[in-house]
């Protein structure tokens, strides 16, 4: 079986269905389960600070600002790092905590998914790859940050904000537009 088929076969995440349950440890050593946030909207953001498409959204301040804005609206934001040990984007948890702080990451938790189980269950392909789980625990968004698949920060302002459009719809109790679209970025370094 080729690796693509292997990856596809393990994906449990389907739009409209319950999101895959998981438990992972954050950079501070705290265990975090999706079930802990029942009744809240949860965002999962796949991360690798060495990826130019991730740099686009951090160095411009876009992702830190969104993390802050939506935390104020009661959203639980989980940044997930599925890089295997030794691969690009991996640091040991204490160093990752420092790195995330230096990059301005304001997520509720920065999760170390070093064995890739959470990433593969969700079918996370790239960084950044965005997922939204609604208050009922269903997966309601699987896709890109926005419509312009470039590493240029200047493009953020003119792009269609696919992810925040979806998140706003979830918070407003409306149907999620474009709930599944092609995410752009660097491959997750499983």
């Amino acid at each position: 079986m080729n690796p693509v088929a292997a990856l596809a076969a393990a994906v449990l995440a389907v739009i409209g269905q319950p999101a895959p349950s998981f438990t992972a440890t954050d950079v501070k050593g705290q265990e975090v389960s999706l079930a802990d946030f029942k009744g809240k909207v949860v965002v999962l953001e796949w991360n690798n600070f060495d990826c130019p498409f991730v740099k686009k959204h951090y160095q411009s301040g876009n992702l830190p600002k969104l993390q802050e804005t939506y935390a104020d609206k009661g959203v639980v934001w989980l940044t997930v790092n599925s890089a295997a040990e030794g691969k690009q984007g991996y640091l040991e948890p204490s160093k990752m905590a420092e790195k995330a702080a230096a990059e301005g990451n304001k997520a509720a938790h920065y999760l170390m998914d070093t064995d890739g189980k959470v990433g593969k269950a969700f079918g996370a392909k790239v960084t950044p790859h965005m997922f939204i789980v609604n208050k009922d625990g269903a997966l309601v968004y699987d896709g890109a940050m926005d419509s312009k698949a470039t590493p240029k920060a200047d493009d953020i302002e003119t792009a269609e904000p696919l992810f925040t459009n979806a998140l706003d719809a979830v918070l407003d109790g409306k149907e999620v537009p474009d709930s599944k679209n092609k995410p752009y970025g660097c491959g997750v370094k499983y």
Partner: protein
Amino acid sequence: MHPVFQTALAAVIASPVPAAERSGKAEASWLSAASHYQAGEPLRTAIRLAADSGWHTYWDNPGEGGMPTSITLHLPDGWKAGEIGRPAPVRFLTGDLPGFGYEGEVLFPVELTPPAGASGEMTAKAELSWLACSDDACIPGEATVELKLSPGKPGTTTDADRIGKAEKQVPETVEGVSLDVTADSHPLVLSVRSTRDGFDPAECSVFPLEFGVVDAGADLHFAKSGDGRWRAEVPASEYADAPPASLTLVFVPEDGTKPLRVAWTK
């Protein structure tokens, strides 16, 4: 005048070394098949993008992840450019992600036509923006490359051969070959009909030009079916939320003949 040009008009003229612009993990330059231009006469050139060993850049359909290379031309007044040719790609995996593109060097052929009254040295510019990836990392690149040419009797440069080879790798649309897609089936059923001599879809590598219609990681192989057609079954892309309305395939014959582009519309 250059001594080579003076004494041996028929000889291949060493190409003036174009300044290669380096950025990230690749370098770009603009090559010409002719040493000089003649007013009103089309001129064969190619924009070269060479990724470092172990790195690749992407086709129009990059597959999962990746990013198509973009090229914007800035020509002197009155100069015209034909379509920028995109040679047929190869398949690769970047980590787990299936993609389409070019390992190492690719030449994008483009024909320029000076206006009838063109004179004096001309400078054309091309802005390139690309993503180079290896298994370990992706690094974007940006460069502006220049082509400078003077008017005069055109000699063949040392780049002419490789420009010619690149031109033969650009897919062309031909008569006598058609594609049909049964859009409401799972998997999708693709069928090709051809009256073109020597074209055998079963002896081709096949690439989808659009993302999000057929699964980028799927094997796309046609086999001869009993009704004088060739048939392939392929899973739809997970991003295809409606039956597809159009699909364009690029067939790259294993015998090295020119690739074909075959389009279907519902």
